């Protein structure tokens, strides 16, 4: 593949303007990833405050109103600031490399969609300093707590959400256009690597639901400032309408946060099992069915709002159905490992932990789908345990696995395997210590979003807090590993993983600033 000699191309610009003005998918990918890492630590420090307050019964560190601001901001920042941008960053780096495209289809738009984010999040974080404090109504911001009863900063929150939404929609459009138009000659849709497939489907979900989020916050804005009563019962509105619109966005949103991780794991497991992915086609169909089903299950978050019986039954059945395609994915991963020739480098460890722990989250999700039982689980720590299992050892482990997996190609250096293993095991222990006991306190009756709790929950909460401190500090090790790799890692070989397949591995190491200036011919490996 001598076509990659970059003699005729200019390299990156120098200094800060490289980053502000760049239209290069690799630079933008890096910025997204660094941004998301920063947000992970900001959101994580809020989790620290939460867990420190909950370390023992009684109020000790923060006031309840500040506690509510912490839970709200923690959720918003982790969802919109850490997980989503990380996946967009991975897509920026990997989608062009994996389909043999020279860059994203709309590079200037790409620059814009990134640079919206720092402004959106600065504004969101600035609300912490405003009179009345930051948003304190939970990341689900149910009306009328978030409208009539909200602190003044709600307006800035709405504006920040609008900006994040625009950024996500622009990013999603870019990814779809790139995948549809810029595949290497000869690469058909059913040749796409799974990471690309899952991202394509995710991008469609984003385009479908981000406008719904924009709509719901706009309705809030109207209620707060312009005298409408969408969600105000006294004016003829309906607070439950808010929840329907919100969850019509937010349920697909949870799949937005996990489908790309499915893709990453589907790349990593075959590499380290040295065996082709089992059931490629059914993986694609399963992803698509999950995405489609995700539009008809939203009200399972609202089993207690008093829907009519038929409504409850419909949403119960449709939610249970999601278990089928999800099960298919898990079975396929296990079958890929079966009779493989496995090694367990850091990316594989994170991928396996993903499969196991995500499945635990999936099974508790199945329990939550059963409406009559959900009356007991709803709004307790059981739910908190469930969604943290699918988001932390799910989405976040997927992202970390992807970073370890592709890092050698990105920067041309190998990370320190021993430290990587430490990072994995400490994270694994920390994550389970944090989130497993939450199942127990939830079942025993501890509601979520409370700064103080009854005495029978004390032991498990303490355990959870200790786990959270462990998990949080362990991520500093991750930063150290990344910096160490970039600064003085050993040079990585052209193909760092002997089982890895795909176009991204055909480019030199480190991946040059411009790749595939001449399209590769697919199938000509």
């Amino acid at each position, binding site marked *: 593949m001598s076509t990659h000699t970059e003699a005729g191309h200019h390299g990156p610009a120098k200094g800060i303007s490289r980053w502000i003005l760049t239209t290069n998918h690799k630079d933008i990918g890096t910025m997204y990833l660094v941004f998301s890492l920063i947000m992970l630590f900001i959101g994580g420090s809020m989790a620290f405050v939460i867990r420190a307050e909950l370390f023992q019964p009684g109020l000790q560190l923060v006031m309840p109103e500040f506690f509510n601001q912490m839970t709200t901001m923690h959720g918003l920042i982790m969802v919109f600031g850490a997980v989503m941008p990380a996946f967009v960053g991975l897509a920026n780096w990997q989608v062009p490399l994996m389909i043999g495209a020279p860059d994203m289809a709309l590079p200037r738009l790409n620059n814009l969609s990134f640079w919206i984010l720092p402004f959106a999040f600065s504004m969101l974080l600035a609300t912490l300093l405003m009179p009345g404090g930051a948003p304190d109504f939970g990341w689900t911001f149910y009306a009328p707590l978030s409208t009539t009863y909200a602190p003044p900063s709600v307006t800035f929150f709405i504006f920040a959400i609008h900006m994040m939404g625009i950024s996500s929609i622009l990013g999603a459009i870019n990814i779809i256009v790139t995948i549809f138009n810029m595949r290497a000659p000869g690469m058909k849709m059913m040749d796409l690597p799974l990471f690309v497939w899952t991202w394509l489907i995710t991008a469609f979900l984003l385009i479908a639901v981000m406008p719904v989020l924009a709509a719901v916050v706009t309705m809030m804005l109207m209620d707060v400032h312009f005298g409408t009563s969408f969600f105000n019962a006294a004016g003829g509105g309906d607070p439950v309408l808010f929840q329907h619109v919100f969850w019509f966005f937010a349920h697909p949103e949870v799949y937005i946060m996990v489908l790309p991780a499915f893709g990453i794991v589907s790349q990593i497991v075959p590499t380290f099992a040295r065996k082709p992915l089992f059931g490629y086609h059914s993986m694609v169909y399963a992803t698509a069915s999950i995405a489609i089903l995700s539009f008809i299950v939203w009200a399972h978050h609202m089993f207690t709002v008093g829907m009519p019986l038929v409504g409850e039954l419909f949403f119960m059945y449709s939610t249970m159905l999601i278990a089928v395609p999800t099960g298919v994915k898990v079975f396929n991963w296990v079958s890929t490992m079966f009779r493989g020739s496995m090694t367990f480098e850091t990316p594989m460890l994170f991928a396996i932990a993903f*499969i196991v722990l995500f499945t635990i989250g999936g099974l508790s999700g199945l329990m939550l789908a059963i409406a009559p039982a959900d*009356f007991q689980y709803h709004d307790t720590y059981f739910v908190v345990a469930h969604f943290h299992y699918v988001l932390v050892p799910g989405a976040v482990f997927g992202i970390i696995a992807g970073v370890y997996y592709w890092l050698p190609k990105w920067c041309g250096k190998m990370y320190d395997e021993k430290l990587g293993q430490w990072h994995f095991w400490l994270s694994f222990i920390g994550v389970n210590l944090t989130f497993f006991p939450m199942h127990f306190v939830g079942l025993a*009756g501890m509601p979520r979003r409370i700064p103080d709790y009854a005495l029978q929950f004390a032991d498990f909460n303490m355990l959870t807090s200790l786990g959270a401190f462990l998990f949080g500090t362990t991520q500093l090790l991750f930063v150290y590993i990344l910096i160490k790799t970039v600064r003085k890692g050993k040079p990585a070989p052209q193909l760092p993983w002997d089982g890895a397949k795909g176009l991204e591995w055909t480019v030199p190491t480190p991946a040059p600033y411009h790749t595939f200036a001449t399209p590769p011919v697919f199938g000509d490996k």
Partner: protein
Amino acid sequence: MTENITVPSQMQRRIIPARLSFFRFFKALNYLGYPDWQKQTILIFLVWDWKNKKKRPILRTKSNFYLQRATNDGCTIRCKENAMCRLLHLFSTALVLTPAPLVALEFNMPAGVTDTSQSVFNLHMTIFYICLVIGIIVFGIMFWSIFHHRKSKGAKAAQFHGSVLVEVIWTLIPLLILIAMAIPATTTLTDMYDATESDLDIQVTGHQWKWHYKYIGEDVDFFSILATSREEIENRKQKNPNYLLEVDNALVVPTNKKIRFLFTSNDVIHSWWVPDLAVKKDAIPGFINESWTLINEPGTYRGQCAELCGKHHAFMPIEVKAVPEVEYLAWLDAQKASKLAAAGAVDKDWSKDELMAAGASVYEKNCAVCHQADGSGLPPAFPPLNGSAIVQGDKTGHMQLVINGRQEKGMPAFGAQLSVADIAAVITYERNSWDNQTGDMVSPAEVQSLMDSQ
């Protein structure tokens, strides 16, 4: 460590005097607030030793280590060793082995005391076991391959990559399992939705941050407010076993009667949840939800508000006292009698001191959550009453505000919540407390005539 505590019957099964759980060891400063903490003996720390610049574990006894609470407002910890002191201040993670009366661990959903809660519990356990079996099979195969099919053991990778037959099988089997789960779930749900033919209807209204219960057709209604003391919450006093789960007026209901609840809310969305009854329903402003229960066993059943409803969401518990029907009827009569007595209070001639005394307790219970005990408020959300122009201004304006509230700004309309005497008392109290020294008083009769004229 053999202290005996008397607890209401229902909590009994949750309390054990001494408990041996493995991480009991990891009790931290939890019991800092316990007066008897000094009896606690062993402390284990992993500390950073500033002098020797290394970490070391220490086992400490009371003899060379002490903690002292110096002030009420915050915790002041004094240690003989500075290093330890810093550590405590930083993380408060001293690991204390504590011999305090403890509450037993609960791992699982309570089976509860109604047929519904029992069938929900059975449903929960069934799904749990199904999930467990699925988990064991899937992870079993996975870990088996992880141990056997590894490169270091010389495993050679097979190259198969699909099989329509197995893929169809593992799509169909889960589908069948799901159908098997859906059937009992549907039956239970249908039953839970049938609130017809109730013997007793109770309207439950959520307020920021208390519950209001109204016995429909009985002319009995009251508020139910958290009874746990501020001292306990702020760690200045030993926490009692019902910490945060106790109220001033419990909801009293008869056993073996079908009770229908009608839920609504006065402000934001709340959710009324009592695990032992398996009832959780959102209380939504402007809408009415219904649910029902039929309690088999007398006892006290505790729950909490489950939907985030603002600052004091954690502090609006629910206490349901189920008693045999005769006892219930007697209680109902007593309620009606005390209501009549309260109505007479309007005509009574109140002295200012009486009003001030009554007002102090009304204020503490109803107003202090927002306006704070010292009247300083929490601006900008909740204005201070100390020095407020309205409070120091003319009586009518003050009365009107308290009676009608300012719902859209978050000030409840207390005309609908408090008795006339209580309103008069609390207004008098506000006008003559802290720096507000108007010197005047508002009598129940004045409040009554203002309310009549509206």
